[in-house]
């Protein structure tokens, strides 16, 4: 049965009509994954010598045991954001003679094969090998590795239980900070406290049973939990939320575009993915602090241009790159309703314009770091307004992948395709290259001036550019409608 489930999963991937594109993403992600794994392996192999260097008077095994508790907390923390919970469309199987326990075991078993479980292993195994070469007893080291696998699996299944619960995440975050703080200020040494616990896994091989049975126990709890949830209504029950109707009649002031604007605002506010997109965008206002407060960047003007484009254009790139896929679930209605394409695009453009102005206002306090900062951000905002809005709208016409609005954005590649990687080039890289050229040949004023003038030219040609983009959307319309109809797997 497991084999059959796997083959279904395989087919759903390979028979999807935008296979080419998803394959592209998977390959890029795959390369990224391999790179991560190799770096981890290298770090693991080198860790023995690094620890020897930093703590010459204690065994590296002891040093690593000291930090293991942090590793666990960090991993839990990261997995919250990165790891996708294993999903499978169980509906078709409910009425077939497949045991529910088999489905539950399959879902849980598949998550054991997740790449996130490999991460730790790729670090631990090279480390263990160097230990062996340095004369550590074979049995102890091997069982230690097995014990770590037990811990990793436990983390994996605990993560499933936590099930993307914000409160737990905050709890882990606080624990991490608190523990580190206590250690740092020497109040209470968490490191010293937990070191013997984890070192015991190495020192007393029999203790390997503890993490293994812990993993088994958590698996069992998960299984019990999941087994009872394999019903249609268990899946549907929490979905319905009471609608909060808001009038938003103020959008009427924007004339014909008002109703689209209102629709977009409602979309952003009432759907998980778009809502978090807004929060993320707001957080990025602080991104500049990373560069402005560090001495080493103080003379690297192009870096500041990058930050300027990024901060004022974060919503532009986050939201804009998926236009019009946000409307994918009702795109055929939009296309047959009384909506001229141009008006539709214009309203999207206005929404982004508002966001750029707003983000620019938020970055005003950077004037604290000098007038240069303000000038750069202003030039970048103008460039975003005039040039990047048409660019991102144009690239939007290549979107063909449906987006389910009510899913979380973290690690969610839905709607993503090679387009998203390509569009970042002109949006982010081109202005920085332009800025750098004029900055190094002339000076800051000229560089900012060039960005601003380009922005103003783009803004002046807005109507003409929008006309071209509208034509492009009309040409691509049929492909989009067909693509958006296909449910993402």
């Amino acid at each position, binding site marked *: 049965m497991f084999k059959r489930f796997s083959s279904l999963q395989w087919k759903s991937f390979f028979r999807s009509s935008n296979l080419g594109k998803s394959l592209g993403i998977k390959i890029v992600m795959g390369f990224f994954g391999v790179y991560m794994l190799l770096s981890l392996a290298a770090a693991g192999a080198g860790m023995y010598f690094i620890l020897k260097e930093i703590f010459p008077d204690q065994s590296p095994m002891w040093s690593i045991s000291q930090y293991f508790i942090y590793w666990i907390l960090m991993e839990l923390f990261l997995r919250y954001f990165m790891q996708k919970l294993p999903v499978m469309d169980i509906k078709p199987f409910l009425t077939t003679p497949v045991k529910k326990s088999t489905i539950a075991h399959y879902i849980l078993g598949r998550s054991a094969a997740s790449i996130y479980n490999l991460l730790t292993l790729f670090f631990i195994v090279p480390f263990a090998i160097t230990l062996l070469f340095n004369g550590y007893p074979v049995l102890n080291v091997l069982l230690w590795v097995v014990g770590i696998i037990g811990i990793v699996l436990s983390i994996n299944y605990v993560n499933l239980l936590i099930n993307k619960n914000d409160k737990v995440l905050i709890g882990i975050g606080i624990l991490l900070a608190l523990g580190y703080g206590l250690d740092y200020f020497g109040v209470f040494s968490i490191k010293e406290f937990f070191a013997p616990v984890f070192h015991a896994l190495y020192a007393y091989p029999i203790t390997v049973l503890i993490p293994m049975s812990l993993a088994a126990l958590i698996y069992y709890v998960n299984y019990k939990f999941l087994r009872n949830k394999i019903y249609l209504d268990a899946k549907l029950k929490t*979905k*319905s*939320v*009471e*609608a909060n*109707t808001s009038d938003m009649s103020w959008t009427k002031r924007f004339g014909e575009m*008002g*109703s689209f604007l*209102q*629709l977009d605002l*409602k*979309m952003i506010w*009432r*759907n998980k993915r778009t809502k978090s997109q807004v929060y993320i965008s707001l957080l990025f206002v602080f991104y500049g602090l990373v560069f402005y407060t560090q001495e080493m960047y103080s003379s690297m003007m192009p870096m500041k241009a990058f930050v300027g484009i990024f901060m004022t254009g974060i919503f532009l790139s986050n939201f804009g790159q998926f236009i019009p896929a946000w409307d994918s*679930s*009702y*795109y*055929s*209605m939009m*296309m*047959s*309703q*009384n*909506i*001229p*394409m141009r008006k539709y695009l214009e309203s999207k453009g206005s929404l982004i314009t508002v966001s750029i102005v707003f983000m620019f206002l938020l970055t005003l306090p950077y004037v604290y770091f000098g007038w240069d900062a303000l000038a750069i951000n202003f030039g970048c905002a103008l460039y975003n307004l005039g040039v990047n809005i048409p660019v991102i709208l144009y690239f939007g016409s290549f979107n063909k992948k449906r987006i389910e*609005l*009510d899913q979380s954005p973290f690690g969610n590649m839905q709607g993503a395709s090679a387009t998203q990687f390509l569009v970042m080039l002109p949006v982010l890289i081109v202005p920085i290259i332009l800025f750098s050229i004029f900055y190094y040949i002339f000076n800051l004023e000229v560089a900012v001036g060039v960005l601003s003038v380009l922005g103003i030219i783009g803004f002046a040609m807005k109507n003409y550019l929008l006309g071209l983009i509208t034509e492009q959307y009309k040409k691509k319309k*049929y492909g989009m*409608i*067909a693509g958006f*109809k296909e449910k993402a797997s």
Partner: protein
Amino acid sequence: MITIENLSKIYGSQKVLNIESLQILTGQSFGLVGNNGAGKTTLFSLLLDLIQPSTGHIINNGVQVNTSEDWKPFTSSFIDETFLIGYLTPEEYFYFIGDLRGQNKADVDKLLAQYQDFFHGEILGQKKYLRDLSKGNQKKAGIVASFIGKPKVVILDEPFANLDPTTQIRLKQIIKELAAQQDVTVLVSSHDLIHVTEVCERIVVLNKGEMVKDIETSTETLKELEVFFGAESGNVVVE
């Protein structure tokens, strides 16, 4: 009102629709019947320019639909639930459509008031988003939304499917009233022969993409259709 000429749609090597010539007069209530895969939804999608014709064209009130967008103001439709915006409440959705069609809130409210019976108290004032309504209720909302803004052409794909018996009867009444207006052309497709014969003045049967029958509805029509589809299934209906 609607003129179809030499229209065909080909996917790969398969011709899914092939209509040499079809004229639908202004004010006519037009029914489309046929088995699955007969090309009903394909024809409606072509009418709404959601897919591209392989050959030929459709002219809607003097506007060629795949070259100009000017048919949109007077044409409205409900094809399936992808025509609904899930994160809006039904009211908000109606007002949005009203906005697109130049109707203010009061106009829309007036129209909705006529459909109180049809809604059966399950659509308005529910504090629910459309995505949380049942399939049948979603359909009701979508159908009524297609009446907003005094459209001249109304296209409904399988409007009777998924509705409960009471609502089906009410919907028949509504479509009849709509069709009774001189200047409104209604296009309906259905699998239910009884419903279409009751509602439509003219019925076209599609089979594997070809127009095989074009009937002015009379008392004999239902029988005629039953005979046709009975023959298709291999069971000849005995008189």
